[in-house]
């Protein structure tokens, strides 16, 4: 019962300019804030354990990073900013991927 939750985003060598920030905020709806359930256990290697259901998950480094940001109560907007700054990713693609990713997290009751 080990599920795979991978995201395919490539890290860039140097951080991008800050100009993406306003654009992102403009396009995102405020309802997209999501919270990781309090008892979810995560590891730096991308292992996620849901103690309420007994389900385990593995995710790749970008997925791990997003989970870590969710754990710090970052909003989806903030996560997009952080990821866009660090990775060479089209914002629309990231939004779509994040949508899919968070939908999966919700399905597996990892998100509140």
């Amino acid at each position, binding site marked *: *019962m080990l599920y795979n939750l991978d995201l395919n985003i490539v890290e860039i060598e140097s951080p991008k300019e800050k100009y993406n920030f306003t654009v992102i905020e403009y396009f995102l709806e405020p309802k997209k804030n999501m919270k990781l359930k309090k008892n979810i*256990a995560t590891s730096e290697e991308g292992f996620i*354990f849901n*103690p*309420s*259901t*007994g389900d385990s998950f593995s995710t790749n480094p970008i997925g791990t990073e997003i989970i870590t940001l969710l754990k710090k109560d970052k909003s989806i907007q903030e996560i997009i900013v952080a990821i866009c700054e660090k990775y060479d990713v089209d914002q629309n693609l990231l939004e779509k991927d994040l949508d899919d990713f968070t939908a999966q997290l919700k399905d597996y009751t990892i998100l509140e």
Partner: protein
Amino acid sequence: MKNQSMKDNTLNSNEIVIAVTALNAIDSPGPGVAVIRAIRECKDFKVRIIGLSYESLEPGLYMHDLVDKSYQIPYPSGGTHSLLERLKHIHEIEKIDIIIPNFDAELFNFIKLRDKLKDLGIRTYLPELEQFEDRDKIKLYDFGKKNGLLMPKDYIINEVKELSKAIDDFDFPIVIKGKFYEAIIANTEEEAKKAFHKIQAKWGLPIIVQKFIKGTEINIAALGDGEGNTISVIPMRKLYITDKGKAWSGITIDDESFIELAKKFVKATKWRGGCELEVMQTSKGKSYIMEVNPRFPAWIYLTAAAGQNQPAALVKMAMGEKVQPFTDYEVGKIFVRYAWDLITDISEFQKISGTGEL
């Protein structure tokens, strides 16, 4: 005079002699070996374990590091008289303090014999006959209704034509169950009829037709003190299931609702001893009790591994000690069952088969 031969209740002072049944640690295992393993792990008392077996090839018979001495006992169908006579004989030799029966089919006899065993100085820690019968599959739905517990609606039928009542009431699929064992999921009327005949041939009548509940299967091991208090509850999610529906691997989970459910059951029934609730949790979060097994489950060692040693707590309570309810356990403890080719000698097999002792 009653209880005259019972030993001092001080657990540390003497070796406690505990007789345990269900040594069939096979692919669909009895709980005996797991119960013994958990008891032996407790450092609060010394024990001598007496294995009680029905068959000569029950693996636990040959596990001499776990079982000190074994005796065969008559099959449950033989009734209480022959069982009592055999137990008297074993007791004369071994001076048994406690018997922990672990088979559904033998529990009726042991409950019936409880007072007679007590007179001999043998303790048990079993539910009352009424509690035992209330949780029977045939009465489960009514029992749930009476006690505010969710159970899948069912029809108890004796003829194949009565299937139509259930089919009219429930959407397919429906579950056709035997009164003792086995359940078949039927998706059509034809399949339901076939399942009825198959189960009738194997387990007799009546047949239970149950509403199918889709969800996640959770098993809960609970220990009650007979006064409505729950001493321990460990919920487990099956991670790997065999073709017989048995857990080959499972994990302890953290969900207060299951603990509350078990407490509600124990309180309603004033359950004494160990039991296992088989629960189906729907996607909407409703928990249905599918079955109640009136004894420890085969995965009971996980309770000890998670910090609530239920078999050891039962021994203490049977010996008269007041045990405080456990409050914590480790979440994320996993068991993975394995098969092991235990090697023995023909002389051992001959001994248990020929003399009924090993």
